[in-house]
C-alpha cells in the first residue's frame, strides 16, 4: 500500500519538477544568473503554502490515521554550511538537485545517469567517512546522522 502510494507520489512530484523548470538545466542557470524569476517564485510560494499547511497540521498534531505527527526538526551542525556550499556548486554544474537527477533520467537525458552515479558515489563516500568527518567537523552522533532531508 505504502509502496504504491510512494510510486504515485513520486510520479506526481516528478511531473511537477519536469514541467515547472525545476528539472531544466537552462532554468537553473537562469536562476543563478538572476535572469528569470520562475524558480524563485516557486520556492517562495511552495514554502509559504507548506508553512501554512504545517501550522494547521500541528494544531491537531495528528495524521489522517490518527498517528501523532512526526516532523521533528533536523539537527543543526557545521555540515549545514560545508555541505550546503559543496551542493550549491554541484547543483550549478549539473543543473540538477537530487530529485531532478531522477526526473532527467526519465526524460531520456543520458548525462543524468552520470550525475546519478556521481551522486551515489558522493553519498557512499560521505557515509564511509562519517566517523572521521564527525570528529573533524563536529557532526551529530552516527545514530542521529546529519539529518534525514
Amino acid at each position, binding site marked *: 500500500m*505504502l*509502496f504504491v502510494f*510512494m510510486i504515485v507520489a*513520486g510520479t506526481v*512530484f*516528478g*511531473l*511537477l519538477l*519536469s514541467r*515547472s*523548470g525545476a528539472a*531544466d538545466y*537552462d532554468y537553473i*542557470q537562469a536562476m543563478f*544568473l538572476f535572469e528569470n*524569476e520562475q524558480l524563485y*517564485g516557486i520556492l517562495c*510560494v*511552495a*514554502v*509559504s503554502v507548506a508553512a501554512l499547511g*504545517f501550522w494547521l497540521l500541528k494544531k491537531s498534531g495528528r*495524521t*489522517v490515521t490518527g498517528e501523532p505527527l512526526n516532523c521533528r*526538526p*533536523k*539537527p543543526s551542525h557545521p*555540515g549545514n*554550511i560545508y*555541505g*550546503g*556550499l559543496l*551542493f*550549491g*556548486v*554541484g547543483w*550549478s554544474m549539473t*543543473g540538477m538537485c*537530487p*530529485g531532478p*537527477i531522477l*526526473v532527467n*533520467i*526519465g526524460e*531520456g537525458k543520458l548525462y543524468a545517469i552520470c*550525475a546519478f552515479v556521481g*551522486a*551515489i558515489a*558522493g*553519498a*557512499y*563516500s560521505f557515509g*564511509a567517512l*562519517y566517523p572521521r*568527518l564527525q570528529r573533524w567537523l563536529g557532526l551529530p552522533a*552516527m*545514530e542521529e546522522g546529519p*539529518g*534525514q*532531508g
Partner: protein
Amino acid sequence: MPLLLDADIQPIHWAIAGAAMGVFVVSLQFLANRSFGISTGFETLCSLFSRQPYFQRERLKRRWRLPFFLGLILGGVLSAVMAGGIETSWALGRFDALIDQGRGFKAVWMLIGGFLVGFGTRLAGGCTSGHGIFGLANFEKASLVTVLCFMAAGVASTQLIYRVFAG
C-alpha cells in the same frame, strides 16, 4: 534536440507549481507521516549494498524513498511522452552553446557535479526538498543555514562559469 521546455512547451506558472509543491509536501506528512526530503534516498540506495556501519543505521530501515525514486523517474517518462515521445539525448541547452567539448567531457563534468550533489546534500543533511521546501516551512534553523549556503555557492559557481570564464 533541445531541452524539454522550449518555445513549444511553456513551464507551469510559478504560482501554480509552487502551490502544488507546497500542498504536496503537507499531504505527504498528513497522509503517510513522512517528512519530505529526497537526498536521503541516496543513502537508502547505498544501504542496499554497503556494510558500512553508517548505512546499517536503524534510521535507514525505512525505505519509502525507493518507490518514490521510481516514481520520480516515471514522472520524467510521462512528461517526455506527453511532450511527443521519449528520445534519448545529450543536449544540455546553454552548456552546449558555451562549452562544446563533446560527450566525454560532459560525462566527466556530470560525474564530478553529481559527486558534489551526493556528498554535499548528505553532509548538509538535506537538499532543495528537505531543507529548501520542507525545512524552511517547518522553521528549522539548519535548513535556513543550508539554503543560504547552497544558493550562494550556486550563484557564485554559475556566475563564474557563464560571466567570468565565458566572458
